[in-house]
């Protein structure tokens, strides 16, 4: 599903070069729920951005579904991102001017679905997250937990095979965090591969496997309930 080999990512200013990821290698198999932990500044988000094709690595090889995406142009990367990857963010990142229906509509527009197909998918995912009655509400009219459910619905509407969550419960109270986590587990059970960055050790433990990143490198692996040991370079 996802295979990174010796990925490097560095940011350069006039005087300083920062290595966010160094010889980072990782494999995530289809259907896995992987949690990623590590101290602040360790490179978790950089890994997630590269995995989500939002950033390009400085070096190394990244295979997504067997396709080398390291050298793809922006249009192809955007198409892959739209078709195969769903994002969930700590800050929800809903577009404030758009109601829930239109927010979920955004990735489907870029996918090129017709109006009928888009409507069908939007209604379906809104029902899955229990917000069908709120379709015409603006994000600001919802609680944090509800907004994160909308963000999950938006990520799921395109039926991605790969869901990337960056601290999805970071802005939620414990009750709502639990509900969101249960929703993610439910989604994973239906076959969507999930990689979740979190600071919460309890949530990390609920994943099949936990990866710890320290100083831009994978420092530890804990095997979960599925899958065999993965090769780490």
């Amino acid at each position, binding site marked *: 599903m996802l295979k990174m080999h010796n990925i490097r990512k560095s940011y350069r200013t006039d005087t300083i070069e920062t290595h966010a990821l160094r010889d980072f290698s990782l494999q995530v198999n289809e259907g896995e729920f992987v949690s990623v932990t590590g101290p602040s500044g360790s490179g978790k*988000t950089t890994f997630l*951005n590269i995995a*989500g094709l*939002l*950033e390009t690595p400085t070096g190394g090889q990244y295979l997504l579904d067997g396709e080398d995406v390291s050298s793809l142009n*922006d*249009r192809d990367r*955007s*198409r892959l*991102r*739209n*078709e195969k990857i769903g*994002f969930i*963010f*700590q*800050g929800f*990142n*809903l*577009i404030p*001017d*758009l109601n829930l229906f239109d927010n979920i509509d*955004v*990735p489907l*527009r*870029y*996918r090129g679905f017709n109006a009928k197909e888009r409507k069908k998918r939007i209604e379906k995912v809104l029902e899955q997250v229990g917000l069908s009655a709120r379709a015409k509400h603006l994000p600001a009219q919802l609680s944090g937990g509800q907004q994160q459910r909308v963000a999950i619905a*938006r990520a799921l509407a*395109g039926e991605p095979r790969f869901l990337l969550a*960056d601290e999805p419960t970071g802005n939620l109270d414990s009750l709502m965090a639990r509900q969101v986590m249960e929703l993610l587990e439910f989604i994973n059970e239906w076959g969507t591969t999930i990689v979740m960055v979190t600071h919460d050790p309890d949530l990390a433990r609920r994943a099949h496997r936990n990866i710890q990143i320290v100083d831009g490198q994978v420092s530890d692996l804990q095997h979960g309930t599925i899958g065999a040991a993965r090769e780490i370079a």
Partner: protein
Amino acid sequence: MIGYYISLAMRSLRGTPILSTLMIAAIAVGVGACMTVLTLNYMMSQNALAHKDDVLYAVQLDGWDPNEAADTPNELPWQLTYQDATALLRSDIPTRQVAMHRFGFTVTLDESEMRPFTAEARITTADFFGLFDVPFLFGGTWDAAADLSPVQQVVLSKATNDKVFGGEISVGKTINLNGEPFTVVGIIDHWDPSPKVYDLNNSPFAESEEIYIPFGLHRKFEIFSWGNTNGWSHSNEEGYEGFLQGESVWIQYWVELDSAAQKEKYEEFLTGHIRQQKEQGRFQRPLKFALSKPSEWLVLNEVLRDDNRVLGWLSLAFLLVCVVNAVALLLAKFLRKAPEAGVRRALGASRNAIFIQHLIESSCIGVLGGLLGILLSLLGLGGVRQLAMGKIDQIASMDWLMVLAAIGLAVLASLLAGLYPAWRISRTNPSIYLKTQ
């Protein structure tokens, strides 16, 4: 996707009403000022005889002062002497030919309570109507014989016919011009070329004449010109006949030559005429004449003056200043929306998609700015009309082409203004905003 982008643009504009209004106003003011000047220039540079540009020629002969060239761009007098005009009229080479000038008559009507009024008149040969494609409502022109003999016939403009005869078919009726009876032989439809290519000696933007009189009536009524009469020597003969036979230039002359061969033949004829005049002691300057097409005639007469052109460039510079302001405002607006662009990128929008989305938003601002700019242009042109006290009403008005040009200019200006901000936002790293939103 275009429809989607337009709906996003309109939503975005509504979301920031003050900033959007400022941007629309910046474009509108620039377009308004620019289109006011460009419309005036455009209307001034119109060629009402463009459809006959290849066959019509204004005739100039150099019979001017041997010691000093005529003070015109091509150093040829604008007009001809009466004696040259009548000599040229005898040629049968042109398909049509017109000798003419401006005059005026007092119009009265027998047994009528109509108040006498002064009518602008054109003293001309019969070919005038055919050569300049003047449309007739009723009747037609006088016989060609009236070009050289005194025949008291008249062609009325539609407005004059409406004024004198209440719009009736007045062909065959009589009106009095300077107390003399004239028979109406034709009524022309509304015809008001602007600029008045056929007579640029007087105001190029004056209205067409109200009545048209045969050229053969000069001696009978001792008709002078109501336009420019220029001369460089005194006539040996006294009185009106002396004026007619003198060197004063006051007759405008046009010919219609349908082929290159016909033109060549006519040039030979003009050369022969000048040589003949030289033998008689006239035309002491080097042999020179000119046949100018209507388009060349407009340029030669500097209808669109250099200061108008400079004003046009200045107005474009002003538009550029407005565009630069719009760039700054758009940049501020778009960068404020960078987090949203980041989210869209994460959800599958390519850089190009973000670029096009924002460029379409700029275009929407341009269209709205263009529409407002048209209103400002109309206000500006209204102001120009007021200042000119009705003298340039025809040119100080927008036609559909200029309306479309205004919108096109506004969209172009806004696209230019939006290029950099749209490019900037499409190139920003989305991950920065996704984490910090």
